[in-house]
């Protein structure tokens, strides 16, 4: 489990464009570096990210070794219904982590 910061407005009006921000604390080790012994440091990155809003895909992204440590994603969605925004991402070990944020439509 890595630490994730999420910013989703708690409340929004129907039809409002909302900004969603996600910061994942992850080293994003590129696989290109070597350690002090000269051995290659194995690649360890988050390679895929998916955000859904009430099961509808808002953003799907592939991430590559050139992405810096602690990736910060910021994107927009249209607020439609009260529900849950789900963030799922997978690292090179195949581990998937899922985070959720609730939104209420007024």
């Amino acid at each position, binding site marked *: 489990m890595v630490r994730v910061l999420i910013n989703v407005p708690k409340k929004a009006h129907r039809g409002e464009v909302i900004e969603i921000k996600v910061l994942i604390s992850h080293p994003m080790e590129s696989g290109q570096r070597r350690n002090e012994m000269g051995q290659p440091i194995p690649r360890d990155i988050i390679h895929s990210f998916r955000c859904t809003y009430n099961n509808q895909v808002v953003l799907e992204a592939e991430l590559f070794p050139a992405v810096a*440590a602690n990736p910060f994603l910021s994107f927009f969605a249209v607020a439609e219904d009260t529900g849950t925004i789900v963030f799922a991402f997978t690292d090179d070990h195949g581990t998937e982590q899922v985070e959720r944020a609730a939104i209420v439509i007024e």
Partner: protein
Amino acid sequence: MSVVTRRATLGALAMPFVARAAHAATGRVVVIGGGFGGASVARALHAGAPSLQVTLVEAQSTYIACPFSNHVIAGLRPIEAQIFDLSGVGRAGVTVVQAMATGVDPVAKTVSLQGRPTLSYDRLVLSPGVDLNDAALPGYSEAAAQIMPHAWKAGAQTLLLRAQLEAMPDGGVVVMSAPANPYRCPPGPYERASLIAHYLKTRKPRSKLILLDAKDAFSKQKLFQQAWAALYPGLLEWVSLSDGGKVTSVDPANMTLTTDFNVQKADVANVIPPQRAGAIAALAGVADRSGWCPVDPITFASKLQPDIHVIGDAAIAGAMPKSAFAANAQAKVCAAAIIRALDGATPGEPRLLNTCYSLVAPGYGISVAGVYRPVAGVLTDIDGAGGSSPLDAPPDMRAAEAGYGEAWFRAITAEAFG
């Protein structure tokens, strides 16, 4: 790097390496900006080639030094100890003109002054320091700085932040905001946080200091964090970029600072905004789109206007930090290069030095030193030269370094302004 080497450094400071041999160089050199860089370059030019006509232009009658101004904020030093003037530079043979420079014509080679006749130059040196780039931080402005002081230019702002800390009740929350690189004095926000924490610990122990940072790494980080854990546990909280620490806007009316993930309420807010080269740099056409000034690292000649040199915080000096020490070192290199160029000679490849002392509590000093040389047109850290205070130093070494810091301040201000 050993403490003995530091002492040698301080000794070397007093003797500019611009040789005092008689140079035949003649010509008019105008320097704009009477801070550490400007005062040092004007003196070094005159000392290195007394036949030069050297004119120093500065708008203010006194100069209030930024190094050690964090001590003033924490109540450890009077502001009077920070105040210098240019009379010593005048006595050294430089013509000092107190006026605001309002424009530069790089083709006619003239500097226009407010309420004074225009000056002509053969070479111009700009050492304008930094301006605050308020537009880069929504909600911040000159008016906002009266409520949420930056105190990043020493003087009234320093005293305002000091007064706000004194007026704050015990149990209050002080919030600092540190900008992304580059900015004046890379370790400055962390020394300030340390000394504010010291003030709170000794005077208002139920208070808290939150340092919101647009960076994940900073100068002397391990030394600062070790000291914070030992001296200020539970009192000083550093929120890094990856912890969501980047401040994206401020609201002085509500005393809040907004990050990407949070809204932080403050009783006292010290907002250090993004910065850029002092305004005259853009007027002279030597600042690029970054707001800073690209220079040749051998001569400090502008890459945009070859007869104008830029030194100090305004210059893009590669790995060299924006510090008073760096400005002084660059001033000597720049002066030597100008004298050689006016003599029709080619300047030699320089080595530049920077040392930076920070105080984390009274009697607890830490330092970092670097040596730099041009590599492929960029000032680059020489591997293995310089270094920082050891992490496992005994208390008497921390106390000694606090003393060396004070000796450094006396030496550099004497050299620039004395």
